[in-house]
């Protein structure tokens, strides 16, 4: 055990026991996976997006499988701020891992209200602001594709919140660097990217969209090359830390992001394929560091050699 590599990592003001988090919307409120694994081993859990009031979500069908990926149009179904604090947080609080609350609002003000509503709540390590959900009519992606709006949402949340603010970006933009820089300037402590790419699928027999919502968000290994590219772009554009997410299925995928400069990664769709993916990645990173005599995961981050 003496030569166990050190997986601890700092993501701005956040101290994580390892760089492997679960992504919002793919891990529920943690409890769902508790029967299958020791949640405390994770670097952190990002909970399903919380809005001020409960949201029932979109009509079904809400998901459809695509080549090496899936489309979802859940529509940010969630229990709402109040129920989250009362029913979900007490259980999450008991975990010995970072709990990050993903939030969403219909307006700049509402984002602020949700952040304010989380003030003082025990057991929340950070807030992750979703300005990039493609599956809701109002707000969501509309904020995330415009640098000014992104900055306004960020500033509002930073002002209202009493803990670190991570902003999660949409990949559905012409130049991710512009958004990243605007959000950095507005005071974000870190960035997460990417959220899903907008996509669609058609039922050719019935000639209707396969999702009731028509379009949805593409996730899974299919999007990994796009995610990695955007993470790299962001890493080069800002000084705040970047958390990489998109199509990570195993430790090798995670390493691609870490080498490209992400200080942590999130596992999303892979949780559906294998619920213990996060733990497998932690084990894989440990073995990799050992095999290559790397004393700490920190030594790997951002080591990509570009000519």
């Amino acid at each position, binding site marked *: 055990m003496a030569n166990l590599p050190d997986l601890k990592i700092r993501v701005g003001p956040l101290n994580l026991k390892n760089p492997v988090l679960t992504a919002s919307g*793919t891990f*529920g409120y943690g409890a769902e996976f508790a*029967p299958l694994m020791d949640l405390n081993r994770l670097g952190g859990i990002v909970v399903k997006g919380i809005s001020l009031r409960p949201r029932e*979500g979109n009509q*079904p069908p809400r*998901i459809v499988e695509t080549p*090496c990926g899936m489309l*979802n149009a859940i529509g940010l179904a969630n229990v709402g701020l109040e129920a989250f604090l009362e029913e979900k947080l007490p259980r999450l609080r008991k975990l010995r891992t970072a709990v990050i609350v993903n939030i969403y609002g219909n307006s700049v003000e509402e984002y602020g209200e949700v952040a304010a509503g989380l003030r003082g709540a025990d057991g929340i390590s950070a807030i992750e602001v979703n300005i990039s959900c493609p599956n809701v009519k109002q707000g969501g992606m509309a904020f995330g594709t415009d640098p000014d709006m992104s900055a306004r949402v960020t500033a509002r949340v930073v002002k209202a919140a009493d803990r670190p603010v991570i902003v999660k970006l949409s990949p559905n933009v012409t130049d991710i660097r512009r958004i990243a820089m605007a959000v950095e300037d507005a005071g974000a402590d870190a960035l997460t990217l990417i959220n899903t790419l907008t996509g669609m699928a058609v039922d050719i027999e019935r000639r209707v969209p396969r999702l009731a919502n028509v379009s949805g968000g593409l996730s*899974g290994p299919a999007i990994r090359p796009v995610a990695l590219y955007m993470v790299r772009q962001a890493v080069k554009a800002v000084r705040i830390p970047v958390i990489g997410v998109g199509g990570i299925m195993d430790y090798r995928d995670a390493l691609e992001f870490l080498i490209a400069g992400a200080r942590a990664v999130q596992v999303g769709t892979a949780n559906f*394929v294998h619920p213990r993916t996060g733990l497998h990645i932690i084990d894989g990173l440990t073995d990799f560091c050992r095999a290559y005599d790397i004393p700490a995961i920190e030594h790997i981050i951002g080591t990509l050699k570009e000519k």
Partner: protein
Amino acid sequence: MITEQTSQIAFNKQVASRVFLMGLKSPEMRAAAVPGQFVMIRVRQAMDPLLRRPFSICRADGDLILVLYRVVGRGTEILSEMRQGDSLDVMGPLGRGFGHPPDGRRAILTAGGMGIAPLLFLGDSVGFLGCNLLAGFASSDQVIGPDRVGLLNVEMSVATDDGTLGRQGTVADLMEEHLSHMDPEPGMVFACGPIPMLKAIAAIAMRRDIPCQVSLETTMACGLGACQGCAVKASGRRDRSYWHVCREGPVFDARDLDWGAL
């Protein structure tokens, strides 16, 4: 208790046209499973197809759980090519199973097509003294009876759309027929099958005020209640808009569903 494990295939054999029966070794799941629950199977170690596929447990036997599946697409095609000794990632048992009829009264079990799968498990646990198992199929070559999965203590009445076996007509017709000379009325109706069939059965049961439980199928990603992908609309009688089939189902009280939205 939910288990996620790599299970060995004890057998995988064709039992009807495009229908296969697979035995998966899992003492853990076998011990925990109740009728109506399902498992999520990763059909192969590959990224395409990406998601696991849900299958009802159709029988628990020794240290095996059995699934009965029809080849309808790529995932089930791949499954059908697996051989004894191969292994699969399996997670289960998942979801809420069937409830019990009030004060142990007789139950009617109605199946449409592959909907037979969970009802075989239920029929096996109740025994033929406790229930009438009624099943509708398109045609005689589609019929899957208890014998096909090795169950001898379950009897089944059959209807086929084309009359090639049993009564000509639907399982709803069969149910009306049985109800007409069942006395006392059954304590519960259980149903699994395509939506139109479930609608018909639920309508009959609700009209007669017989409690009715239906088992639903939807597309699923996680099977654990985490992704909210498997939503179905709840009826007005409940203080929520949607149920999650994987966790609050797949078995529902017929009155808890918004049948218009299904």
